[in-house]
């Protein structure tokens, strides 16, 4: 288990890989990939430094060591594992061009043609007629991401999942565990992701989260970047302002008009001056330009909510059809809740009309994991909220405010126990024969 302390009797095999050289200064290198290396050359599990880490954290002013791991065109990479013929070709994962499909992820070959995420699939095909469009399988990507996160937790004491394909790993205080060569270890980690998950990724190691994120952008794809403490400003200086996450088109345009081009231009300004220009965010930008920023990698220990949404290929109006969709969403979230061993108290409905007006309605009920109970709640929220004049683009069901289902209840309501047995049986049948073979009816 990942929380064990370092076993003193166990040798640490760290950074055996030949590519582990500590860079003396700012280094940005592209790794060779190394798929032919033997599986698992590094014993990461030996390095689980909770105590060391906490002790270091307790000391103030410690220099942080934060790695940002970014999976390169993640969805495409997953599809390429399943279908190796996609390698080296312009590929995009997303919806079909007929409906309102958009590109969720594009390979670097496709990006060369100007294809970008969030672009309408039809437009992407116009830009790159030979583009291979693959339908998105979000569920599968989530599972792989979760597995990778679990693996990362064996390597670093604190791991934050920033998104499905981005992770922050806090190595502060672990330097000696990695033979004082965290820089070299970044290459080993990249190789591990390639070997064990067949996924290309880019990694940056820096003293803050923001800096690590900026740095990783400079070496994508398949690169490693290490910014040793003290080199933050010199690394940032030549970069354009737009690379700072949080600086949007508007801020960038405003700064460009004032003659700011690179981060060096920002570094030359006082905090007061930037605040006068940009208001409160000026102070933040001043800090980021000097290599300071958030360095707290946080772990979400308990999941706060479970939700499912569906955007329809065509807008829907008919109530039976919409309620049918809601039923599917409810079955989906309920199965997850039961799998986690929870019961939800707060049930929320999300409804987006064709004109993108979005409304949410929630109700708190007795903690439950029962499909029909949750469906009845969602249905009554829906019937009360739905404006029949409008077509619906998206429906979502969101559960939160969970109870621990392991805590048993006094049988003050005897029907409850029978119901539990029934739901368990339904889940087993679905797991074996598929989601559509059985549905739970009303009580």
């Amino acid at each position, binding site marked *: *288990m990942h*929380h*064990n*302390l370092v076993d003193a009797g166990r040798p640490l095999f760290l950074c055996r890989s030949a590519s582990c050289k500590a860079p003396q200064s700012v280094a940005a290198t592209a790794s060779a990939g190394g798929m032919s290396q033997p599986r698992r050359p590094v014993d990461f599990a030996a390095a689980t430094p*909770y105590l060391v880490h906490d002790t270091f954290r307790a000391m103030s002013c410690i220099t942080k060591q934060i790695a940002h791991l970014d999976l390169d065109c993640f969805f495409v990479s997953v599809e390429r594992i399943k279908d190796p013929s996609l390698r080296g070709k312009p590929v995009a994962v997303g919806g079909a061009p007929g409906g309102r499909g958009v590109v969720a992820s594009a390979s670097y070959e496709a990006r060369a043609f100007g294809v970008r995420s969030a672009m309408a699939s039809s437009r992407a095909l116009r830009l790159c007629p030979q583009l291979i469009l693959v339908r998105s399988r979000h569920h599968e990507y989530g599972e792989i991401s979760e597995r990778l996160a679990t693996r990362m937790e064996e390597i670093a004491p604190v791991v934050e999942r920033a998104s499905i394909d981005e992770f922050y790993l806090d190595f502060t205080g672990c330097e000696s565990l990695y033979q004082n060569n965290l820089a070299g270890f970044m290459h080993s980690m990249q190789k591990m992701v390639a070997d064990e998950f067949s996924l290309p990724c880019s990694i940056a190691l820096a003293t803050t989260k923001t800096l690590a994120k900026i740095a990783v952008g400079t070496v994508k794809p398949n690169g490693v970047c290490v910014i040793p403490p003290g080199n933050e400003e010199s690394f940032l200086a030549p970069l354009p302002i737009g690379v700072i996450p949080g600086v949007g088109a508007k801020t960038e345009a405003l700064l460009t008009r004032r003659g700011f081009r690179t981060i060096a231009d920002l570094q030359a300004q006082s905090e007061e001056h930037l605040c006068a220009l940009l208001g409160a965010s000026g102070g933040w930008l001043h800090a980021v330009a000097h290599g300071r920023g958030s360095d707290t990698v946080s772990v979400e*220990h*308990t999941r706060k909510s479970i939700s499912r949404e569906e955007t329809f290929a065509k807008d829907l109006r008919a109530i039976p059809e919409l309620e049918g969709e809601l039923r599917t969403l409810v079955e989906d979230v309920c199965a997850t809740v039961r799998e986690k061993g929870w019961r939800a108290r707060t049930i929320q409905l999300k409804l987006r009309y064709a004109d993108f007006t979005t409304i949410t309605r929630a109700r*708190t*009920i*007795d903690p439950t994991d029962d499909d029909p109970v949750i469906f009845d709640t969602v249905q009554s929220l829906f019937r009360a909220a739905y404006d029949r004049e409008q077509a619906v683009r998206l429906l979502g069901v969101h559960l939160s405010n969970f109870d*621990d289902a*392991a*805590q*048993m*209840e*006094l*049988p*003050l*309501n005897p029907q409850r126990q029978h119901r539990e047995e029934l739901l368990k049986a339904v889940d087993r049948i679905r797991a074996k024969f598929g989601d559509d073979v059985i549905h739970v009816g009303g009580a």
Partner: protein
Amino acid sequence: MKFTVSTSDLQRILGKLAGVIPSKSTMPILETLLFELVNNTLSVTATDLVVTSIIALDVTGSEDGMIAIPAKRLVDTMRSLPETAATFSIDTTSNKVKITTANGEYSLTGEPAKEYPQVPPFKGSSEFAVESSALRKLIHRTSFAVSTDELRPAMMGILFQAGGSEIRAVATDGHRLSRVSYRTEVPARLAKDVIVPAKAMGILAKAVESGTCTVSVSDTHIRFLYDHSVLVSRIIEESYPNYESVIPQENTKLAVMNRDQVIASIRRVSLYASATTHQVKLELGANSLKLSAQDIDFGGEATETLPCEYDGDGLEIGFNAVYLSDILTHLDADRVLMKFSTPTRAGIIVPAEESQNESTVMLIMPVRLNA
């Protein structure tokens, strides 16, 4: 309106009334206390419209009258003053309240008494008297188990039953249950079972001191009369779940242990339990009780073994440590008897020895142990 009162006397009754005042209210008048002077008796009223408490106090009065005084400032003032005589001079037309002590003068603005909500007339029927100390015990041993779940309003109060010569209080939140009976010397009878909001019971438990308390119910309210005071509470008009049916009759695995030892042990072991589930495991073996906890998310585990009287088959059962220690701390006994059957059925905890006129049963539902 004018009277002189000892600051400590007034502070004492204000302390008892402060719990009634709602912290957030859409009606600002509820954040005041109603003062009424008749001859040399001052009555102070606090209400949140569900619970109303009135306490009377002997003062040296000169002009009768009524006024509503902002509670927080008054309570804070009394709390800050040393023991001394304070004279309240109140102009009921301008609502100015002036408090004079030997060294100071404090002025505040009140509200006209007619703005204060009227206390509804109480038309009680059945009535009986009970020792205040017994009432306090009944409340103390049940109130911790009251549910805070607004979706189960019936369980947000303490159920009171009285018949023959027994008064019974019951509370449950679905995870634990407490049933306490007290045999009175004089017959006690309530026309019906009543569910009293937990807040009212908490205020009452703090306010009753010695002597007896007279209890009566009407269709909608319950009233307690004690030491120059009245507490009237609306009752929760719901039907209470059939709690008797969930009390197991066939728990045959019996273990007797020292209460303080177990409480201390749970406190230490639960430091190592998951912060979300507070799960602790109890393992009963021959004359021993092993308590253990494990935190899978953060690492760490703890085990302690205690002596106990037990000669049944081995049993492993999990509990939420908070619920378990809540029960144990509210039992008034040196040694406790735990009765179990299986790891998925309710456990019963009772005092190993109990006085003739008391009977306490506490129930706790287990947590399914991780496989």
